[in-house]
């Protein structure tokens, strides 16, 4: 090869090597949820009547007030997984894997699967969402795009679910957006739920996971059995105005009952003025530690 050709190819090679990568982050890995926020609500479970900080409307309040936990014993619900918006908060380990296009070598999808749940595909390949007639699922249908190093998702076709595991429902008319952020070994996801049926404002939460190289997520076969003998077609419910448990949370934790009823007002700093001077109570089962 002549000197001139070598110089030319060197210049070309230098240019190609130095082309910057598209802003992307690898979210794949084994992620362990960290319950450093709302530990009691997310792990053992929320108390009945705890709607603190939720921008719910009267319809949502009524739906939650009349919810009976015994509903979960029905065969139709025993094996129901948390839906895409709630599962980030639940006590389940997460595995994220990725699909890579063999030709372009681009990541075309992430797959998020939690313990006790279904595979949830997050498509980055520009495909459209299904038509309105398509079935709805627990995971919904998700497409995503990059905003710098943040992955922003749009989720449609979500089955009805819940925003908290004490009966605060989330309707199938809701939309969900997420923002996935990774800093080192920490994954932070913001979920924004907008529900015209049950919320007066978007409900925003941020949840953290830590990379766990040794995590193994086992299968979780769920078998539907007859848990409770009850009359055919019985659906457990509490009649409106007849829930005897709604004051328990407020009494146990020393929270003013009015605050436990939730509503957008309880989300904003101004509400602190109503809480000034209030020191909570600590039930025996609530402790502190790792």
């Amino acid at each position, binding site marked *: 090869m002549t000197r001139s050709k070598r110089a030319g190819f060197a210049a070309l090679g230098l240019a190609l090597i130095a082309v910057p990568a598209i802003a992307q982050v690898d979210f794949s890995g084994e992620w362990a949820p960290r319950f450093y926020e709302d530990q009691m609500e997310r792990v053992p479970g929320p108390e009945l009547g705890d709607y603190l900080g939720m921008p719910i409307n009267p319809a949502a309040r*009524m739906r939650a007030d009349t919810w009976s936990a015994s509903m979960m014993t029905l065969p*139709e619900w025993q094996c*129901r*997984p948390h839906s895409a918006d709630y599962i980030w908060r639940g006590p389940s380990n997460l595995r994220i894997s990725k699909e890579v296009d063999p030709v372009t070598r681009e990541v075309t999808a992430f797959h998020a699967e939690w313990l006790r749940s279904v595979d949830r595909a997050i498509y980055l390949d520009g*495909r459209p969402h299904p038509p309105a007639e398509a*079935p709805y699922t627990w995971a919904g249908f998700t497409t995503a795009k990059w905003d710098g190093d943040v992955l922003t998702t749009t989720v449609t*076709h979500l*089955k009805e679910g819940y925003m908290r595991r004490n009966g605060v429902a989330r309707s*199938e008319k809701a939309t969900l957006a997420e923002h996935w952020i990774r800093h080192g070994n920490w994954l932070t996801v913001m979920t924004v739920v907008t529900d015209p049926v049950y919320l007066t404002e978007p409900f925003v939460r941020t949840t953290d996971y830590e990379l766990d190289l040794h995590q193994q997520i086992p299968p979780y076969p769920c078998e539907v059995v007859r848990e409770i003998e009850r009359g055919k077609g019985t*659906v457990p419910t509490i009649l409106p105005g007849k829930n005897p448990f709604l004051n328990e949370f407020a009494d146990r934790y020393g929270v003013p009952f009015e605050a436990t009823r939730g509503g957008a007002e309880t989300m904003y700093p101004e509400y602190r003025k109503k809480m000034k001077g209030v020191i909570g109570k600590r039930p025996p089962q609530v402790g502190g530690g790792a």
Partner: protein
Amino acid sequence: MKKFLMFTTVAVAGAIGWATLSFAQTPTPQLKVFPVRRNVYVLSGAGGNITLSVGPDGILMVDTGLANMSDKVIAAVNDLAETVATKGLSGENVAPPHPIRFIINTHVHPDHIGGNAKLALSGKTFTGGNVSRNLNEGAQIYAHENVLNAMAAMKPPAPFEAQPTDTYHTEYMNLSHFFNGEGVQIFFMPAAHTDGDSMVFFRGSDVLATGDIFTPGRYPIVDLAHGGSINGLIEALNRILEIAVPEFRLEGGTYIVPGHGRVTDSADVAYYRDMTTIIRDRIQDAIKRGLTLDQIKAAKLTMDYDGIYGATSGIWTTDQFIEAVYKSLTQKN
């Protein structure tokens, strides 16, 4: 003939896989065809949902939509049949598809039987020998005998061509032979939406067409005048849950085509069953406490579900639903 059928399937995450196929036709703004599974499709926009089995044996329709949509439905069904026969490829040299051979009515309402006459006449029954009647003219129409009785009792009676050619009065009937590779069963659901409700189960495709027993997106219509009842309707919803088998984690598996609205599965029916049962129980409790109908309406016992199912105008309002449940629970016998 201008083809106006848009035929589209889209991939969905999880255990449910949908192939992506779309090819250009001139779309009708009102009618849409959505593939459910294997040979089963749903055509929407002609009134109630029309479930179709389309394949080498011909076409079986569950319901026929509104009368004034019949021409469009016929065109859409024929286009679908041709698309299926040619696999969507133009220039394919295949035999013309077999026509509409069977119509099954889920119940007597005009948005489900309105197209009976035209659709049946556009079809054909293959028979011969000494079989009576002009069975080589038009498709057979199956329904529960209460549908025939109701159509005959209309003032004026429904046209002869629209009336069922075959009825049943037992708990169920099966088509006497496979159709497009699978067994087809018809289940009678007494005193539900009406007194002549049938659900049609495509056993191989695992698809259940329910008629207006199940209508996600609105409160169930209990047609008291036609023998419907809230308890019978709840019983029917529970029966759907007995038939349906989810694939994994309570989703997918048996697909349920409702009378109106999107394709669903057993979890969607379970939510609907829960809502209907809970509201029934609330109204029953209110009746026991001696509340009048007006007081029950004022008590807003459905408020937590109104945002999903309720309406203040249109063909079925929340008040009408409450009234129907009240009357169903208080009527003698």
